[in-house]
């Protein structure tokens, strides 16, 4: 597939998909979305990119080996779980911090749960891409 229109179009589409996947990841705690879905959307963007421009370009654009992304995600998820244990709770208990909290408004929530979800995102993203890239290079 060597169409210039497809290649240019896909590059923009990939960016939009990755951006959208991050949006789905962040909103996941209250609305449909989350790490699994976000990771799937993000990886779809790069799968399309690899189809249109070749895996070499896709790997260059990604800069990091997808396997490493997946491993990093697993590590982040684990750390997010261990964090609770350090503070005496059971493993994987959510720890929350509300920035600018007022009695009426909870402010900006930051939590280990979010980091755990980011880990899930990276695992799904990295795993799918490592399989798809390897398959495409094989053929």
């Amino acid at each position, binding site marked *: 597939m060597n169409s210039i229109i497809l290649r240019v179009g896909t590059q923009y589409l990939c960016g939009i998909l990755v951006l959208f996947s991050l949006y789905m990841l962040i909103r996941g705690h209250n609305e449909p979305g989350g790490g699994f879905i976000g990771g799937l959307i993000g990886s779809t963007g790069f799968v399309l990119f690899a189809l249109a421009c070749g895996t070499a370009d896709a790997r260059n654009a990604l800069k990091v080996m997808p396997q490493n992304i997946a491993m990093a995600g697993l590590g982040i998820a684990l750390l997010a779980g261990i964090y609770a244990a350090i503070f005496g709770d059971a493993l994987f208990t959510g720890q929350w911090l509300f920035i600018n909290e007022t009695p009426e408004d909870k402010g900006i929530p930051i939590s280990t749960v979010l980091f755990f979800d980011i880990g899930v995102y990276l695992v799904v993203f990295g*795993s799918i891409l490592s399989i798809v890239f390897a398959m495409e290079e094989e053929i």
Partner: protein
Amino acid sequence: MNDDTATATKPTGNGLVGLIPVGIALLLFGWFLSLAPAIADGQTLRVVWDWVPSLGISMSFLLDGLSLTFALLISGIGALVLLYSNTYLAGHPQFARFALFLTSFMLAMLGLVLADNLIGLFVFWELTTITSYLLIGFGHDTTKGRRSALQALFVTGAGALALLAGFILLGFSMGSFELSEILVQADALKAHEMYLPILILILAGTFTKSAQFPFHFWLPNAMAAPTPVSAFLHSATMVKAGVYLMARMHPGMSGTDVWFWTLTIAGAFTAVFASILALRQTDLKQALAYTTLMALGTLTLFLGQTSGYAMTAFATFLVVHSLYKASLFLVVGCIDHSTGTREADVLGGLGRIMPFTAFAAGLAALSMAGFPPFLGFIGKELKYAGILAIGSEPFIFAAALLLANALMFAVAGIVALRPFWQRTGIALPRKPQEAPWTMLAGPVILAVLGALFGVYPDLLQVSLVDPTVKSLLGSIEDSKELKLWAGVNMPLIMSIATVALGAALYLGHKRLRPALGRLVDASPQFDNGWDRFLAGLKAFAAWQTRIIQPGILRRYIFATFATVLIAIGGTMLLRNAMPALPDLSDITFQNVALVVLISAGALLTAVTSSRIAAMAALGVVGIGVAMIFIVFSAPDVAITQLLVETLVVVLVAVALLRLPVLDENGRDRRPLDAILAGGVGLSVTLVLLAVLETPLDLRLTEYFEVTSWPEAFGRNIVNVILVDFRALDTFGEIAVVVIAALSAYALLRTTHPRKDP
């Protein structure tokens, strides 16, 4: 010591890596020693930490006479062996690994003898299995080393599985996993209907660990390990773990006929059998290995009894054996290190060159042979007194013990006398020289202790023997006195007979060897049997792999679905759980349309002869399923489903380029597959209908609905469950995802050489 010239070029130690473990062991030894007076006063110490409170599992440790004796032997001999190996393996490239293994093993062993909780004890038991596997297999560049390590791992590991089953049975039968609570209910335990299964399972664990016949064959092979490891594992630790556990269980389980006969017969047979084999060995280390088997057999034999003499004999011989055996192993290591050989027929005349080694060897061997005034003599006298106190058939067992002791006498001569004093005139592989002090410290200290305790038996009596007997029998009233001269009595006469018979065997052992060889060759070979057993196991695995996993994807899927059909359909038929027809009155056009869409897609996938069409039809099925989720308002699941479908289409499209065309004539129809597919579909449908017949338990759903926002600050319940309530499950799942991805990557990469990146 004249090691200066030789060690000028060779490293003498391994720096801090070699010294820190020695320090750890010494600190532990000192700590246990400081607790000894309290234990000698009759106290016991108990420490408890909660581990898994929800299952009643705690990390509880108990220090009484029995555990203290073991703990002192383990940490004391451990310190000497670690100091010794620092020189023995000086400059070895993998010394750090060795030190780690040996220290871990020592700590696991200490945990084992101190644990009061059954589960905790089992965990330490397995830790010793694993670390001893690593130690025996330290010389992993030889086939023999790997085989020996694996054999030890399999035999003791299999026993440990039985032991775990026994522990769980014991814990549930007695309502507690704490040994200190179980063992006080001895009568209830012995009368329990589960007593026999528990006993068999626990003995399976201890007999394999302590290498009792017929599980003895792994121990001599384990001599593939470096000599310091053998000295440690086969004197005071690894193989004594089984003996320890039998002693620990003794107050609660002994006294029954089955306990008495099993332990007595297995112990006596192992002792005689092993000491006959020991005489046959020409390799010094192998000879010692077989005498270790003999000692383990003797200890087991005494644990079968309940008399005060037997228990005192057990406690004394335990210490005696650990002292002289560790010492002799280390001496053999010195000889090997210095001359490059361990062959008894080659070695000779080392007495003048290695005087300190000869001194240690002589003391240890005199103790082993049972000469006064050594502790070994007292141990032997007590053994004879203990064996004569056996209730039934004492003379058969006494004769067995006498024979075994006489053989030990002969082996002591072979190991400690001949290498130093005989003249062979055969050139040694290396010019021998005396070992450095770090290697002499262990054997000399241990051998001198054997003599010291012989002259002052009260020291040992008060500090270790009496408390151990108290652990076994509940009081020290039955503990017999350790003394060198007990008057002219039956044990003394038997001792004299032992010396006479042993001397005769020693003088004639070269002539006996061929006869013994023929005897051994004629009897069943357990080591070869082991090889046949493993070969059979591998052949079976290969056979069933050929049937179930032939490498054809279609067969895999067939096997999987056939199993599902048999499991689900069979269960439903057997249980007669056929559901009633469902109520279809509230069905809508929307539902019907979805069902038709999905069924049509599935059917088309199965019958089409075009791959593109099949793929598209499969996509229809997936989207139909996603729409079901939308209809029943599960947007998260629907989105995931849609995205996965998209990715599957992409993946299949990539793979499609490589696949051959389908059979266009449509002859490739497989009726069997169709029947299987239909059967699986039907049975799954029936199961779902049956499930719907029981009212759905909504408590969990309600709990999540109520607590999701106030406790987890999230309104999307699916996501909150995934990342908060059930985060541990999710973590397991993403770990599986990563493993799957890495495996797929590895598979794809190994089919062809890697292209340029």
